[in-house]
C-alpha cells in the first residue's frame, strides 16, 4: 500500500478540504478584482498604450523616430537637465531645512511634538493649488514679501521673486518638505537613547555623538525621505507651471505642452516613457539600498 493511499485512508476528507480551502482563497482573491479592473482599465492599459504610441512614427509605422528626436534636439536635453537640477536642488534644500526641524521635533515632549506635527502635516490636507496660490500672492511684484522687504529697508526695488527659477524652487521645497520630515522624524524617534548615553559615557564629545552615533542611525529615514522627494520632484507639473512663468520647463510641463499645443502624442509619450523608466530605475536602485516598505508603510495617518 502506497504512502498516499495510507494518508488518504487516515484522512478521508483531506483532498476535499484542500480543494475547498483553495476555492475559498480564489474567491477571496476575487474580492480584489473590481479594484484591479478599475486600475488596469483606467491606468495600466492607457499607459501601455502610450508606450506603444511612443514607438510609432509620423506615418503610423513602428519606428524609433520619437526617441531619436529626444536625443537629437538639444531642447529636450535641456529640459531633462533642468528637471534633474531642480529636483536635486529641492532635495538638498529639503534636507538642510527638514533634518534640523525633525531633530528638534524628535526631542520635544510627545504632546508638543504631536501638536507641531499637525503643522508639518497641514500641507497634506491643503490643496497643492491653494499653497501654490499662496506663494504667488506672497512673492509677486507688489506682494507681501516685496512689500515688507522694502518697508524694512532690506532692498529698494521690488525684486522678481516669482515666475522664475527661484519661485519654482521655493514652491517645490514647501510642497516636498513634509515628505522628507515624516520618515526622518519616524526614524529619529525610533533611535534608542541608550546608545547616545553610552557614547557620551565612553568619552565622546556631543559633536562626536551626533555624527558617529545619532546621524548614522537616522540615515535610513533620511535616505527614504530624499528618495521620495526626488522622485516626486521629477514628475512635478503644477508648481513649475504656475510659479515658473514659462521660464521653468520640466519634463511634465513639456509633456503637457506637446499634447495641449501640438497634439503630438508620439513626442509626449516618448517623454513620458523616459520619465517613467527613469523613475522606476531610481526606485529599483534605491530599493536595493533601503527597504521600500519603510517608505510606503512608514507613515499611516
Amino acid at each position: 500500500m502506497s504512502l498516499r493511499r495510507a494518508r488518504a485512508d487516515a484522512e478521508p476528507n483531506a483532498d476535499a478540504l484542500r480543494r475547498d480551502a483553495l476555492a475559498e482563497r480564489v474567491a477571496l482573491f476575487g474580492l480584489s478584482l473590481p479594484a484591479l479592473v478599475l486600475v488596469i482599465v483606467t491606468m495600466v492599459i492607457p499607459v501601455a498604450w502610450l508606450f506603444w504610441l511612443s514607438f510609432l512614427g509620423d506615418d503610423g509605422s513602428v519606428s524609433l523616430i520619437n526617441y531619436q528626436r529626444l536625443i537629437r534636439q538639444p531642447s529636450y536635453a535641456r529640459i531633462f537637465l533642468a528637471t534633474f537640477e531642480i529636483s536635486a536642488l529641492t532635495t538638498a534644500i529639503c534636507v538642510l531645512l527638514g533634518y534640523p526641524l525633525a531633530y528638534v521635533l524628535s526631542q520635544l515632549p510627545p504632546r508638543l511634538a504631536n501638536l507641531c506635527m499637525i503643522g508639518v502635516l497641514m500641507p497634506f490636507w491643503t490643496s497643492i493649488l491653494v499653497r501654490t496660490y499662496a506663494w504667488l500672492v506672497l512673492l509677486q511684484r507688489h506682494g507681501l514679501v516685496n512689500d515688507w522687504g522694502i518697508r524694512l529697508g532690506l532692498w529698494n526695488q521690488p525684486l522678481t521673486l516669482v515666475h522664475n527659477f527661484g519661485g519654482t524652487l521655493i514652491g517645490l521645497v514647501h510642497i516636498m518638505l513634509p515628505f522628507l520630515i515624516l520618515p526622518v522624524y519616524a526614524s529619529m524617534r525610533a533611535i534608542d537613547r541608550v546608545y547616545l548615553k553610552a557614547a557620551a559615557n565612553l568619552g565622546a564629545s556631543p559633536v562626536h555623538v551626533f555624527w558617529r552615533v545619532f546621524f548614522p542611525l537616522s540615515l535610513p529615514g533620511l535616505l527614504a525621505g530624499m528618495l521620495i522627494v526626488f522622485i516626486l520632484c521629477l514628475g512635478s507639473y503644477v508648481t513649475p507651471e504656475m510659479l515658473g512663468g514659462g521660464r521653468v520647463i520640466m519634463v511634465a510641463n513639456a509633456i503637457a505642452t506637446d499634447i495641449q499645443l501640438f497634439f503630438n502624442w508620439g513626442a509626449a509619450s516618448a517623454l513620458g516613457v523616459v520619465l517613467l523608466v527613469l523613475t522606476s530605475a531610481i526606485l529599483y536602485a534605491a530599493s536595493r539600498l533601503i527597504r521600500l516598505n519603510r517608505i510606503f508603510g512608514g507613515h499611516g495617518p
Partner: protein
Amino acid sequence: MSWFADPGWETQVRHRSRIWLYLLAAAVMAFLVVPTLIVIPMSFSASQFLEFPPRHWSLRWYVSFFDSTSWLQAAATSLKAAFLTALVATPLGTTAAYGLFVSRLRWTKLAVPILLTPIVVPVILIAIGVFYAYVKLKLVNTLVGLVLADSMLAVPLVVMVVTSALKSYDMNQEMVARSLGASRPRAFLLVTLPQIRFAVLTAAVLSFLTAFDEVVVAMFISGGDNSTLTRNMFNALRDQVDPTIAAISTIMIVISSLLLALSQILGRSR
C-alpha cells in the same frame, strides 16, 4: 532660567548653546505653516489687491464667488466628484485589501503592486493616458469619467490604509465567529469591519480629498459643465492673481480641515 542652562535631551549640549537650532526649526515651521494660513485673512480684504494685514475688511470676494455661476458650478462638480469617488474607491479598496490580505494566493504578489502603481507612476503620464483612453471611450468632460479616474488615484491610498489596519488586527477573531457558525461575509461585516472602521473612515476621507484636490488629471479630462474647481482655479491663476481665489482657497482649507478633524474625533470616540 535653570532650564535654559540644562543640557537638552541626551545631547550634553546646553539649550542656550544651541539656540540657533531652535531658531532654525521655528523658522522652518513658520515656512511650512504661515504661507497657507496667510491666505485666510487676505481673503477678507476689501481692497482690489491682496494685502496683509487688510486695511479694510469685507466679504466682497466671497460674494464674488457665490455670485458667479461658473465658480459655483465648478464647486458643485468638485464636491460631487469627490463624494462619488469616496463612495466608489472606499468599498473597492477595502474589499481588495481584505481579499488580498486573507487569500495569500500566489497571485496576490502581482495584484498588490498593480493596485499601488497609481502612486508611483508620474501623474502627468496617468493624465495623458487617461485622456487618450477617454477620447476613445467618449468619457472626456463627463462626471463618470472624472469619478473613475479619481477613484483609480484613490484606490492605492485606501488599500494601504486598510491593509495596515488589518495587519494590527487579530484575524483569529473572525475564525472564532466562523467556527460559531457565521459565514465569511457575516463574520467580516459583524466582527472585522467594526474594528477596522476607523481606517475605513480615514480611507474614505482621503479618497474624498484626493478627488477634491486633484488638478493634473482634471486638466485633461474635465471641462465644460463638468469642469472642476481646481481646473478653473488653475486656468484663472495662469492669467492673473484673482482675489476670488483667496476666498475659494479659504473655503477649501476649511472643508479639508473639518473633514480630517471629524474623522479624527469619530475615530477617538469609540
